[in-house]
């Protein structure tokens, strides 16, 4: 049995040299290309897979109902002809907002990557030094992993993201993992772009172990302090939430916040 797609993605992301730029390419034995993952300064820019047929323009139209395919195809043709970046051009012309473009690009990248990891072909790394992607339109490994993880369970992921957005305050970070899942990979995240995937998994494992023991005495929320970092964790609806806070009086601020929070069992 093949491992879940998100584990394959994790292994692929771990292969990326830190801060490197280039492409992880999958080439079949017959010489045809199955797809590629483009990386710039350690961030994911784009993924393509022969098996993935949805175009970015289709996703943009689905995301923003004021857009139509005719408008988009016109801009697409112009960008292709004049070697202009599509995303930036769409934003510059006011056709899409940056958050919508960000969301559409992330969805396209994650779904294409989900198809790409299911191919049976070796990976090879092709380095390059040309930079061209707007940093706002590239993604951290944590974002991509959460995006791929969400494909398997979109309803749970959407609910977890909604809850995180409701509780994560300015300057805080948070992520959610599915409790019954063997892997502790994020189902949703807010503000964790800069956190190493291994650190997220370690925090999730620690939080899960504490909550498992604490549940025997009806504990709802666990708070921990490590150095200047405060961490709160709680479980709702088979999802474990972890909220991180640092800076001055981080523990006290987080304590006040979670003490006032309603936990939904």
């Amino acid at each position, binding site marked *: 049995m093949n491992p879940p797609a998100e584990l394959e993605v994790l292994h692929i992301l771990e292969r990326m040299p830190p801060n490197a730029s280039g492409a992880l390419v999958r080439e079949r034995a017959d010489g045809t290309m199955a797809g590629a993952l483009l990386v710039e300064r350690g961030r994911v820019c784009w993924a393509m897979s022969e098996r993935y047929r949805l175009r970015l323009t289709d996703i943009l139209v689905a995301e923003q109902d004021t857009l139509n395919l005719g408008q988009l195809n016109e801009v697409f043709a112009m960008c292709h002809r004049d070697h202009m970046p599509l995303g930036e051009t769409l934003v510059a012309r006011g056709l899409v907002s940056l958050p919508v473009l960000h969301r559409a690009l992330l969805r396209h990248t994650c779904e294409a990557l989900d198809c790409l990891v299911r191919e049976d072909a070796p990976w090879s790394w092709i380095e390059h030094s040309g930079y061209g992607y707007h940093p706002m339109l590239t993604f951290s490994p944590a974002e991509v992993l959460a995006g791929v993880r969400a494909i398997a369970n979109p309803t749970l992921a959407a609910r977890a993201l909604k809850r995180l957005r409701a509780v994560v305050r300015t300057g805080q970070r948070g992520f959610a993992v599915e409790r019954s899942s063997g892997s502790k990979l994020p189902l949703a995240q807010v503000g964790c772009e800069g956190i190493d995937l291994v650190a997220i998994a370690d925090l999730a494992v*620690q939080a899960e*172990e*504490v909550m498992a*023991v*604490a549940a*025997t*005495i*009806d*504990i*709802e*929320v*666990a*708070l*921990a*302090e*490590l150095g200047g970092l405060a*961490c709160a964790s709680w479980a709702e609806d088979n999802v474990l939430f972890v909220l991180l806070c640092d800076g001055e009086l981080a*523990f*006290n601020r987080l*304590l*006040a916040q*979670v*003490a006032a929070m309603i936990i939904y069992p």
Partner: protein
Amino acid sequence: MTRLAEISGQVPDCVVAAWVDTRTGAVRERHVERPATFIDAALEAATEVMRSRERPPRMVLLSARHVHMFHRMAHDPHRVLVVICERSPNIGLAVALVRSFADAEAAAA
């Protein structure tokens, strides 16, 4: 008055203050302010949670009715201070008092 009696007297609505040994699971000393049936189970859970030294040295656990505060002593990592009080709007004060007590104990060691 023992030091544990002192802290349990200061923390508002304190139920119990205890020193537990995470290596043996034994309760080295306890001062019960308000007898309750869950105390033994709670001290056992505290020992279990703090047993791994990979865990943070300071933890606060909240249930619907109680606040459980755990502090591992840096100089004696198997020794953990456990203070449990009832949950009230004074939660911040209780946590601060227990923290000061644990710091004073560490300094005195």
